[in-house]
């Protein structure tokens, strides 16, 4: 069902769903309150996986701000040009201290469009000195072509050996533009070609280029491997583009995607799909078990989704200024019904399938 699209974030529109507590109310109400569907807590209790606890910390994910050049319909961040939440240099310095001392092997910068943070480059330069094994930047591709000042990003990424992970909803123009906005497909193709030219995504290259696929509506992704084959074939044949891996990621019922589900009357059916596809084997590897998510203002969360729902970590250490990895790792993870999005089918995390 098509719903009216807006070029403004829910925040800018002062929509009720911009508030985390409203979203949490919806996720705990209705079909979950009247017992038609089991809550996530109840479900993971069946296999004695409650409370959910972290394993070894592997990934530090830092959200450097909610500003973005795009306003994708499915965005769980509710990002857009009108979002002003941007990480300050002061907070970045606190993050750098943590990065220098962390046991995590992966640093994952996200947003919004992280490149729009005015301190982005300085931060990448400093962070790349810390000797982190895998340094990911989640780039939406169009930012690279959005403005002249970003044209050199592929060279900048290469210089700092950044691992680029980019969203590409489909290999067809129509599906891509429908989800992410008019013209996004062509700009993304151009950006991918630029990255390929620098060696990104080439078969034997160390310059990693992975793509993220989110379904373009109220259905789940299936068959990550099959989808990767299709993407590779189509992008190669049509545009000569190469990349390494495709991650198929389930859309979680949060922020704009939740808004879309409700407006298109797909919410209940989608939650049924998620619960039906629940895979207990995926629980052990959900993202929050090896990740800490840091918000633009330095608060700590179990994952980027909990960040958007303002569910801060259940620990004495709640802010980057008090960061203590051992204390932090000894915590129960906060869950709600959106978590079903991480355990559907083969599971889903920012690294794609988990089971």
């Amino acid at each position, binding site marked *: 069902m098509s719903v009216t699209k807006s070029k403004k974030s829910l925040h800018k529109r002062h929509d009720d769903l911009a508030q985390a507590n409203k979203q949490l109310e919806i996720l705990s109400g209705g079909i979950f309150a009247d017992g038609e569907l089991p809550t996530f807590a109840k479900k993971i209790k069946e296999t004695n996986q409650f409370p959910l606890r972290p394993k070894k910390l592997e990934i530090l994910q830092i959200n450097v701000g909610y500003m973005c050049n795009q306003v994708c319909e499915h965005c769980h961040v509710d990002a857009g040009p009108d979002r002003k939440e941007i990480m300050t240099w002061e907070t970045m310095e606190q993050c750098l201290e943590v990065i220098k001392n962390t046991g995590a092997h992966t640093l994952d910068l996200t947003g919004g469009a992280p490149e729009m943070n005015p301190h982005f480059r300085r931060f990448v330069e400093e962070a790349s000195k810390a000797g982190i094994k895998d340094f990911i930047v989640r780039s939406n591709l169009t930012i690279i072509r959005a403005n002249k000042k970003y044209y050199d990003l592929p060279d900048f990424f290469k210089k700092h050996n950044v691992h680029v992970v980019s969203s590409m909803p*489909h290999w*067809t123009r129509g*599906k891509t533009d429908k989800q992410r906005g008019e013209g996004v497909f062509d700009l993304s193709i151009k950006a991918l070609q630029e990255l390929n030219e620098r060696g990104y995504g080439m078969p034997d290259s160390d310059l990693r280029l992975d793509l993220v*696929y989110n*379904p*373009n*509506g109220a*259905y*789940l*992704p*299936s*068959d990550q491997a*099959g*989808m990767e084959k*299709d993407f590779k074939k189509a992008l190669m044949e049509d545009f000569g583009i190469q990349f390494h891996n495709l991650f198929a990621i389930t859309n979680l019922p949060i922020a704009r995607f939740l808004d879309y589900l409700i407006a298109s009357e797909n919410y209940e*059916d989608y939650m*049924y*799909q998620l619960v*039906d596809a629940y895979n207990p084997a995926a629980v052990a590897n959900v993202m929050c078990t090896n990740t800490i998510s840091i918000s633009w203002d330095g608060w700590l969360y179990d994952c980027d989704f909990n960040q958007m729902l303002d569910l801060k970590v259940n620990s004495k250490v709640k802010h980057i200024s008090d960061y203590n990895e051992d204390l932090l790792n000894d915590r129960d993870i906060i869950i709600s019904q959106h978590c079903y999005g991480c355990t559907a089918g083969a599971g889903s995390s920012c690294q794609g399938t988990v089971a």
Partner: protein
Amino acid sequence: MANNYYDPADLRKFGKITEWSEELGTKFFDYYGKVFEEGALTAREKALIALAVAHTEQCPYCIDAYTKDNLQRGVTKKQMMEAIHVGAAIKSGATLVHGTMMMNKVNKLEM
């Protein structure tokens, strides 16, 4: 009893048919699951065949389920519509080819 013969919510109850005849129901779902596994045909090819047959059978539940299944597999609208045309072509061809029966009969009966 609902007011409609078909209710989308009934699709979710499909699994429950096993409750009233466990052995047969279980055998059916085992068979069904096996059929759609990756084999000499890919799971995706099977999903497209299922979509075409869902239309020739005009089963709303199957159309609902296999449209979603195809979307999940990244099948495009164009591919789905082409599959349905295959079903429609066979369906109309099957109707029309029986015209030869009619012709045979007419030829036999007419002087």
